């Protein structure tokens, strides 16, 4: 199986304190740690496990600046064979449609059996790049995949539905599968492993080499344009309990007692 994995280099924001810039159109990224998008991490692991079982190759591809090389190196260290980075200043401001167009131009000339990518990205959360890419390539897709069983030309997958329910769907290959977290256990990779992966080469392609013009990418080539970012208004705010941990614990215990919960 030759597998392409589309990954994104994103800031880790789950536990970070985010600040919006004065212009209100971006968050301040200088203090944030960047890494592979969590969903893509599971997609990469799934690809490597398939390769280990069935043979073949894993190629990772990303759209991003030089910073994204650290994510590509991590993927190479984890078992990817090749890495491609598509980069151009003109790609700035691309939404999932523009990103999918960029990926499509390169991937359509590659040979592959499956494309895996995360079900969404933790930054903009569009959950759209994978299925748009599939449409542009004229192949099938399944999103939010939690289990994959492969035969030579068919993928049998479980898709996550709401409330713990799943559906089983069969797809003809080649196809795009977008991966939900929890499908596997992404392997640990040592710093040494990442250093070793630095010897593997990353192919870098710009706008002209990709074969698009500037109106097809970035804001001009996107469906959606960000106008303003702001902190979500809160309808309700918790009453904050102050004090030492012991004092706070006493206050909680009193509240629980008053409500008959203890």
């Amino acid at each position, binding site marked *: 199986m030759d597998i392409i994995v589309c990954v994104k280099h994103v*800031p880790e*924001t789950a*536990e*970070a*304190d*985010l600040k919006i810039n004065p212009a209100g159109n971006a*968050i301040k990224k200088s203090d944030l740690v960047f890494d592979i998008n969590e969903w893509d991490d599971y997609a990469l692991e799934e690809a490597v496990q398939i390769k280990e079982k069935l043979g073949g190759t894993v190629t990772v591809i990303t759209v991003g600046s030089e910073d994204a090389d650290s994510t590509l190196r991590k993927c190479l260290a984890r078992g990817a064979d090749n890495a491609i980075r598509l980069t151009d200043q003109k790609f700035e401001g691309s939404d*999932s*449609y523009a990103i999918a167009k960029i990926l499509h131009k390169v991937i359509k000339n590659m040979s592959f059996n499956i494309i895996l990518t995360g079900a969404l990205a933790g*930054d*903009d*959360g*569009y*959950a*759209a790049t994978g*299925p*748009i890419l599939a*449409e542009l390539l004229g192949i*099938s897709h399944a*999103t*939010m995949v939690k289990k994959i069983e492969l035969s030579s030309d068919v993928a*049998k997958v479980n898709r996550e*539905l*709401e*409330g*713990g*329910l*799943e*559906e*089983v*769907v*069969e*797809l*003809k290959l080649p196809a795009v599968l977008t991966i939900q977290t*929890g499908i596997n*256990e992404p392997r640990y990779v040592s710093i040494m492993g990442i250093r070793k992966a630095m010897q593997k080469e990353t192919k870098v392609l710009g706008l002209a080499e990709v074969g698009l013009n500037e109106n097809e990418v970035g804001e001009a080539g996107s*469906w*959606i*344009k*960000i*106008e*303003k*970012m*702001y*902190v*979500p208004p*809160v*309808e309700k*705010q*918790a*009453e904050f309990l102050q004090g030492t*941990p*012991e004092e*706070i*614990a006493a206050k*909680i*215990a009193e509240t629980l007692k008053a*409500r008959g*919960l*203890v």
Partner: protein
Amino acid sequence: MQEIFVLAEHRQGQIRDITFEMLTKGRELAEKTNTELTALLFGKDVKEHAKTLSQYAKKVLVVEDAKLENFNSEAYQKVLSNLIKEHKPLLTSIGHTSFGVDLAPSLAASLDSPLATDCIDLKFENETLTVTRQIYGGKVNVNATLRKAESYIVTIRQAAFPAEKKIPMNGEIVEAPSPLSEEITEKRFIEYVLPPPGGVDITAADVLIGIGRGIKDESEIPPVEELAKTLGGVLACSRPIVDKGWLPNDRQVGSSGKTVKPKLYIALGISGAFQHVLGMKNSDLIIAVNKDRNAPIFGVADYGIVEDLFKIVPPLKAKVYELRG
């Protein structure tokens, strides 16, 4: 008159809530933009659903076909794309659900119709569609505009709008022919599967201690479980804990897990992404402990503690123990 389309979502004989939520917003938008609200219903033997929907929309457009019995994004895309080409609705609204995210992006790409996903609000201003979305896991809101077009597509977040009951609209039910001539073979629905039930039913518990990303290692769970036991409750969790395999998935609270309504919900190290909040916001009393003062969980909690959860758990367990005598 131009229309606003709302695609009805139904599964195993039930119309899903998101449908009525979208119809609420659709009615408002139709009034403001002087368009007509049309509910789209695809399926097999869905006459009863059509009757229900006719109370909420001006028109119900029904496509009946055995090939539409179960959701299949490719079958749905063919039917929906034909209707969009024919009717040129101002807007097509689809749920940002598992079905919706399987359908909307490829549909939009096939029509080159601008798409905004996971919207929590939308409005038309000067013939431009402006949407509100959440990014960075709900920590930041974004107002975004869509490229001007004849017809737009959006997916709507669950529970973003109330499922209001309004004056019965007595909409007309119109049947449209199915364009599906042959079986879709590229993608086939096989079956629904439910994970095997576990030992604990968190929906029946009066007290739940929910744990999330703040737990960094499996070895950190037993002390929290002891607190739960001391309170006569059980452990529940948000998605990352199940993803790591530390708790079985029947302990997960949220849109992809269970919806709970205990007397007490203590959220420990849970940031409060909307998917989790959807499953626990109606708990009687919510207490949240999180290191991040701006964590969205504090927007639904009654009491908030900005602190490392491991500093609170031991003294809290001691105090509760003391009170119990």
